C-alpha cells in the first residue's frame, strides 16, 4: 500500500462497507450457524484445537482468562426467573466473526492485523508486537494472546508430533485468533489455481464445520451466489453492509438470520439462525 496508491484512490478508501467498501475482494468467506441445531457438544472446539495447534494452558492460566479456545461454546441461561431452565440452555459457538469493518484492524500500531482480499481479518504473527490493542477493541472477545511460551508445557514429547505443519505454533507475545482455517482455504485455492478453475462451493470446510455432528455450521463464499451459505444469507435477508435489521420493515420481518452486535456496524461474516423452541 504505497502512498501514491492511497492518494490516487482516496475517494475509494473513504467508502464504508454500506457503500460496498473499498476492497477488491476475490472471495468473502462467511458462515451460517444454525443455533437450533447447535447442541453445545464441544466437537467444533476440540476439532479446532487439533487443527490449529492451540495450546493447552492448564487450570491456573485458564482462570486468568488465558485459554486459547479460538472456537468456544458460550452457554447462557435464559428464563432466570423460573425454578428450572425449562427451555434448556442457550449455546453459542463464538469465534472470530471476520468482520468486514473490523474494529481490531485500525488500532494495530504495526498493521499486524489486516484485511485480506478474501475478506478475512488476518493476523501476521511475525509482525505482531503484542500491544493487545486489537483484543481490547474486539466486541466479541475472540482474540487470544500468548502470555507465555507454551511449546514445552503444551506439547511434551511426543505430543509435538501431532502439530499441524501447515501452520505455525505461536510464541510468547503474539496475538492469535480464528482464521476460518486459512490453511485449508489456501490449499483449496492453490489446487483450484493449478487446475485453472474457480473454487467450488463445499471445497473448503473448516475443522469446526467438518466435525459438527449436527451440521449446524455451514461455510462458504458469499461472493459465489450459488453457494449454500449465500443462499442461506439471502433466504434470511442478511446482507453485507446492511446494518441493523432493515428487514424489520419488510413482510418477512421474522426470518431467523441475524448477526451478533450488528448495531455496532462491524459487518460480521457470521450469520446466526435463531434458536427455536416450542412452547408446551
Amino acid at each position, binding site marked *: 500500500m504505497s502512498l501514491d496508491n492511497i492518494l490516487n484512490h482516496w475517494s475509494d478508501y473513504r467508502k464504508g462497507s454500506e457503500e460496498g467498501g473499498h476492497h477488491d475482494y476475490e472471495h468473502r468467506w462467511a458462515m451460517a450457524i444454525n443455533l437450533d441445531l447447535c*447442541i*453445545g*457438544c*464441544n*466437537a467444533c*472446539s*476440540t*476439532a479446532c*484445537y*487439533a487443527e490449529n495447534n492451540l495450546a*493447552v494452558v*492448564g*487450570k491456573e492460566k*485458564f*482462570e486468568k482468562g488465558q*485459554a486459547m*479456545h479460538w472456537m*468456544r*461454546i*458460550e*452457554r*447462557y*441461561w*435464559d428464563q432466570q426467573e*423460573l*425454578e*428450572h*431452565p*425449562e*427451555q*434448556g*440452555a*442457550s*449455546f*453459542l459457538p463464538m469465534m472470530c466473526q471476520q468482520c468486514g469493518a473490523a474494529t481490531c484492524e485500525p488500532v494495530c500500531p504495526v498493521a499486524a492485523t489486516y484485511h485480506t482480499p478474501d475478506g478475512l481479518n488476518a493476523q501476521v504473527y511475525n509482525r505482531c508486537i503484542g500491544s493487545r490493542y486489537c483484543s481490547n477493541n474486539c466486541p466479541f472477545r475472540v482474540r487470544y494472546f500468548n502470555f507465555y511460551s507454551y511449546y514445552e508445557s503444551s506439547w*511434551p514429547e*511426543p*505430543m509435538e508430533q*501431532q502439530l*499441524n*505443519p501447515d501452520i505455525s505454533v505461536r510464541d510468547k507475545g503474539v496475538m492469535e485468533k480464528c482464521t476460518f482455517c486459512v490453511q485449508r482455504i489456501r490449499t483449496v485455492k492453490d489446487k483450484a489455481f493449478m487446475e485453472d478453475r474457480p473454487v467450488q462451493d463445499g471445497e473448503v470446510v473448516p*475443522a469446526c464445520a*467438518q*466435525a*459438527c*455432528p*449436527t*451440521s449446524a455450521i455451514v461455510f462458504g463464499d458469499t461472493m459465489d451466489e450459488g453457494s449454500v451459505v449465500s443462499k442461506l444469507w439471502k433466504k434470511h435477508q442478511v446482507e453485507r453492509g446492511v446494518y441493523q435489521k432493515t428487514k424489520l420493515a419488510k413482510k418477512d420481518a*421474522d426470518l*431467523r438470520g*441475524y448477526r*451478533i452486535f450488528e448495531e455496532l456496524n462491524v459487518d460480521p461474516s457470521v450469520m*446466526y439462525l*435463531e*434458536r*427455536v*423452541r*416450542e*412452547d*408446551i
Partner: protein
Amino acid sequence: MSGKMNRRSFLKVMGWSGAGVALTGCDMPTTVTLEEGKEDVVSYLMPEEYVIPGVGVWYASTCTQCAAGCGIHGRVREGRVLKLEGNPDAAMNNGKLCMMGQAGVQGHYNPDRINTPMMRTGGSLTPISWDKALGVLEEKLGTVNGDRFAWFTGTISGHQSVLLTNHLDAMGSTNHYAHEVVNNAVSRAVNQDMLGEANPRLRLDKAKMIVSFGADFMGASQSPVQYAGQYAKFRTNKERGLLIQIESKMSLTGGSADLWLAIKPGTEAVLALGMANLLLNKIKISDAGIPADVRTLINTYDVTKVARVTGVAGDRIQRVTQLLSERAPSLVLAGAGVEGQAQGYATTAAIMMLNHILGNVGKTIESAGDFPFPQLMAKQGGTADLVAFAKAAKAKKLDAVIFHGSNPVYSAPKSLGLTEAMANIGFKVAISQFPDETTMAADLVLPVDSYLEDWGTQVPADQAEANAIHVQQPLMEKLNAETKGLGDILLTLLKQRKKDDYGQFEDYYAYLRNAFSAMPTSVKNDAKSNDEFWNTALQTGVIKVDAGTKTLQSTVVSFAAPVEDDNAGLTLLPSPRLGLFDGRHANLPWLQEAPDQISKVVWDSWVEMHPDTAAKMGIGNLDLVEVSSAQGSVKLRVVLLKGMHADAVAIPLGQGHEAYGRYAKGLGVNPLQILDATTDGKTGELAMYSTRVTVKRVGPADSLSIVRMGTGAGDSQVGRKLVVTVPVEQVRRTEGT
C-alpha cells in the same frame, strides 16, 4: 491353507461361522507391500508413488475412543497422523466426529504411554523383555485351571473378539467379564424381553416427538454422533420434532429440549405409569397386549398421585401425554439415570411400555435385522460383570486374569471391595496403553499399540440403517517399537495353546488378510479378487453387510410395581459427560481443558446442586462441601445449577485418578468410589443412581479453586442479542412447515 483344520473349525477361527456363510477359495496373500501395511521404513529418496512430502493423505480407520465405533479418516503427512475426521462412508457417523474422537491423537501421542513390558518383582513393576514376558505368560497360563482363568475387557467386537473367545475356549474357560460404566445393559434386557431384540434400531429422525426419560443420547450414550445426526434430521424435518426431556440433572441432551422437566430421582416409573393411565383410560388408546397385572397397576396411578410423587406438575403431565397421543409416531427413551436404579429393569420396562401403547414399535423403533456374523458382534459391557467379577475375586475363584480396555480398579465402588480382592488373583495381566489404576495393580503389563497403530475390525452395536463392519488399520508406524497390537498379543496367546490352528499366521495382519479372503461372497460385492476386496475395505473403512429385514414383536412384560420411597434425602447422580466420559479420557489435555457443556468447569470435579437446596443448607456457590454416603465421602466445590431437581446432587465422572499419567493423576474426586453396591434384582446391574448422600459445608467459596469458562453476569445474556430464541409458530409462518 493348512490341511489340519476342517471347514467348520476354519470358519470359527476366522469369525465367519453363522447363518448363510458360503466360502470362496481362501488364497493366502503371498506378497506384502507397504501399501498393504507391512511396516517397513522407506526413505524419501525412494518415496512410494502416493507419498508427496508436504501433502497430507487421508486413510480410513475406526475410532475406539468409546464403544460406538464410528468410522474415521486420519490425515497422515510425512508418516505422522495429524488430524482425525469422521468417515463419510460410515453411515452411522456420516463424516462427523465428536470431541472424544477428535482427541484420539492425544492418546496416541500421549507422553505417559507405557513403552515396555513390565513385571512385578519385589513389589514394584520393573521393565522386562517381550520374550521374557511371553515366557512368563505361557508358563503361568499353562498351569492355570480353565475355570479359574478370565478375561476382563470393555465392550469388544470384531476379530479381536473372535480371537478372545477362541482363546477362552482354548483355555477351557467361559469367564469373559465385559465392563462398561456408560452402558445400556438394562435397556438391552428390557428390549430383548419386549421387542425380541436387544439392540433395535432407534429412528429419532422418523419421530415427530421424543420424550426422553434421562436418555442423554447426544452426550454420554452408546453412539452420540449417530444420534446427534438423527437429532439434526428430527429438528429439520418438515414438521420440526419436539423434544421433551424429563430428568433429575440436566444432561447435554436436556440442554436442547423444548421442555425440560425436573423429576424427583427414582420416580420415573411412577410418571411412566401415570402417562400410561392417561393414554389408556382418558385418551382411550387400546390396552391390547398389556398383561392384566400391569393393567391393574396402571389404574392405580392417577395424575394427582403421580404429580405428588414425581414433583412434575399435573397439567404438564396431561399436556405431554396429550401431545404424545397426537404426534405419532413418537419415541419414548429411557436413559442411564433410569436404568441405574434399584428397580432399573421395572422402571425401564414401564417407560418402554409407552412405545408399545403409542404404536411406536416398527415405526421409530425398527428391527436391526439379523447380523449374519454373530461371532463378530459386539460383546457389550455392563456393570453386572463388574459385580460378578468382584464377587469371584473375593471368593478366590480366579487365579489368572487378563485385563484390557477397562479400568475396574478405578470404576468399581469401594463397597464392592475389588481393590482388596485383586490380591486374591495370583496372576494379573494388563494389556494396556497407559499406567492406569488397574495396570498399576497388575503383575504383568504388556504395552499395547494405540488404535491408530493397530489392525482390527469393529462391529458397532448401534448400527445405522446400513449395517457394517468397520475396518481399523494403522495410520502410521508405531511410535515405540516395544508396543504390540491387541490382535497380535491375542494371536500369540492362541499360538501358545493351539499351535496347529494358529501357527500358520505370522501375525494379526496375516490373520486378518486370511479372514477377509475367507469372507463370504455376499459381502465382497463385486470385488474381482481377494486383494481387490481387501484394498477396497481399507480404502473405504467400511464393509457393508446385509442383515436382512425383520419385524419387531411389540409386547409388554410384567414388571414390579414401583416402591414408594418417602426418604427425603439427596440422591447422588454420578453423571458421565461427553468428554472425560467414564474417566478413560482424563489423560487427554484437550478434553480436560474443554469446559463441561452445562457447568463450564475445566480441569476439576465439582458437585451440582439446585440453588434452593443449597440455600436451605446454608451453602453458597463455589463453597467447599463434603458429600457423604454410607460408603465414604468426597470433598469438592459446589456449582449451583437450576437444571437440577432439588432432591438430587450430581458429580461428574472422570476425575479422581490415583494414577493414569500427568494429566489425570490427583485431579478432582471419583464419585464411583462412594456408591452403594445395590444392584437391580432382575439384571444384576449396579444401581449407580440410587445412592443417598448428605452434603455438609466445610469451607468458604474460593474463586481460584474451581475454574469456569466465564460468560459473566450470572450466565445471563443481560439483554444482549446473543442467542435469540423464537417460538416455533413464527418459524412455521416464515419458513413454512
